[in-house]
C-alpha cells in the first residue's frame, strides 16, 4: 500500500497546486514555481496563460528545430550554384527573410481578425483577399528595392557586377513566386488551427518563417538556373 499512498499524495499535492493557480509560489518553495512535464504536455482547462501557449506550440517548434537542422544540411550541397553569381549570396539572407516577414504580417492580421470575429474562416471572406493582395504588392516593391540596393552595393563590397536587369528579374520573379506559395500555405493553416480552438498566433508565424526560408532558397536557386 505504501507506494500507492505516496502516489496519491503527489496527485493531491498537484491538485492543491493547480487550485492556487499555475506559476504562483503556492507552497512557499521555489520549486513549486517550476513547470512539471504534465504542465507542459497537457492543455489546461482554462484557456489562457502560459500553459496554453506552451502546450499549443511546443510540438510545432520542435518540428521546426528538426526541419532547420535538415535544411541547413541540404543547403550546403547547393552552394556551388550561388557562388557563380556572388551578388545573390549578398541578398540571400535578406531575400529569404522577407518572405517570412511579409507572411508573418499577414499571419498576425489573420490571427487577430479571426479571434476578434471580424473574419470568418472561409476563403470567400474579402478580408483574406485584401491581405493577400497587399502582401503581394509589398513583396513586389520590396524585391525591386532590394535588387537595386544589392546592385549598387556589390561594387562597393568588391563583388562581380552582372546586368542590372538580370538581377531585378531574378530577385523579383523569385520573390513574387515564393510569396504566392507562402501566402497560400498560411491561410489553410490559420483556418485549421482556429477551427480546432488553437490560437493561430502560436503556430502560424513559426511555420511561415521556416517555410519562407526553405521555399525562398529553392525558388531563388531554380530561377537562377533558368535565367542565369
Amino acid at each position, binding site marked *: 500500500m505504501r507506494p500507492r499512498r505516496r502516489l496519491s499524495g503527489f496527485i493531491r499535492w498537484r491538485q492543491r497546486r493547480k487550485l492556487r493557480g499555475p506559476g504562483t509560489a503556492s507552497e512557499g518553495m521555489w520549486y513549486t514555481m517550476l513547470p512539471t512535464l504534465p504542465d507542459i504536455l497537457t492543455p489546461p482547462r482554462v484557456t489562457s496563460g502560459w500553459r496554453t*501557449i506552451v502546450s499549443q506550440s511546443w510540438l510545432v517548434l520542435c518540428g521546426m528545430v528538426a526541419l532547420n537542422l535538415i535544411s541547413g544540411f541540404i543547403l550546403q550541397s547547393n552552394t556551388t550554384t550561388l557562388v557563380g553569381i556572388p551578388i545573390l549570396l*549578398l541578398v540571400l539572407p535578406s531575400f529569404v527573410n522577407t518572405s517570412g*516577414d511579409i507572411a508573418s504580417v499577414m499571419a498576425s492580421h489573420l490571427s487577430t481578425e479571426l479571434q476578434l*470575429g471580424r473574419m470568418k474562416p472561409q476563403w470567400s471572406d474579402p478580408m483574406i483577399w485584401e491581405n493577400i493582395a497587399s502582401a503581394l504588392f509589398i513583396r513586389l516593391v520590396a524585391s525591386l528595392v532590394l535588387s537595386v540596393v544589392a546592385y549598387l552595393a556589390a561594387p562597393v563590397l568588391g563583388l562581380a557586377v552582372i546586368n542590372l536587369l538580370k538581377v531585378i528579374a531574378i530577385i523579383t520573379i523569385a520573390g513574387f513566386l515564393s510569396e504566392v506559395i507562402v501566402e497560400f500555405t498560411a491561410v489553410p493553416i490559420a483556418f485549421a488551427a482556429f477551427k480546432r480552438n488553437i490560437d493561430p498566433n502560436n503556430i502560424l508565424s513559426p511555420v511561415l518563417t521556416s517555410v519562407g526560408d526553405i521555399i525562398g532558397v529553392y525558388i531563388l536557386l531554380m530561377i537562377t538556373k533558368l535565367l542565369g
Partner: protein
Amino acid sequence: MAKEVSVGRILKIIREALPLIILYSIIEIPAGGIFSRMEEEIRRLPGLLLMLPAIMDIRGDISSSYGARICTAYHMGIITPETGFNKYAMENASATLVLTFITSILSGALAWLITIFTGMPHIALVNFLIIALVVNYLAGFVLLSFSYFVAMTAARMKLDPNNVTVPAITALGDVITISVTLVVAKIMMGWLIP
C-alpha cells in the same frame, strides 16, 4: 464583418508595412557580414555551424509568436500602452521562457547527434547545450523587451502593431542572435569542456 474587398484597408496595410519591410530587408544585409567574420569560431568549434540556422530560426519563431500574441491582446484591449506590462504580458513572456528551454535543449542535442551519426568532428554535448541555452536566453531577453517596446510604440503612434512588430523581430532577431552567438562563441573557445 466585411462584405466586400475594401481598397482602403489594402492601402492602410501597404502604407504602414511597406516602408518598414524595405528598411528591415536592408538591415539584414549586414547579418551576412557578421556571419563571414565567424570563420575562426566555426573552425575552433566544429558543429556550431550546423546548430546556427536552427538557433537563429527558433529564436525568431518564439519571439515572433510572442509579438503576434501581444498584437492580438492589444486589439482585444488586454495589453495596451495604458495598462503597461501587466499579468497577461507576464504570462506570455513566461511561456516563451519555457519554450526557449525546451527548444534549446532539443537543438543542442539533435545537432550533437547529427555530428555523431555523420562522423563529423564535434565538441562535447555539454558545450552544445551551454551554447544553445546561453545564446537563446540572452538573445531572447533582448528580443522580448524589444518586441514589447515596438508593439507599444506602434500603438502610441496610432499604427496597427500587426503591421510592424513581427517583421521587426524577425529582421533584428537575426542580427541580434548572430552577434550574441559571436560573443558567446568567443568566450566558449577559452572554456571548452572536454
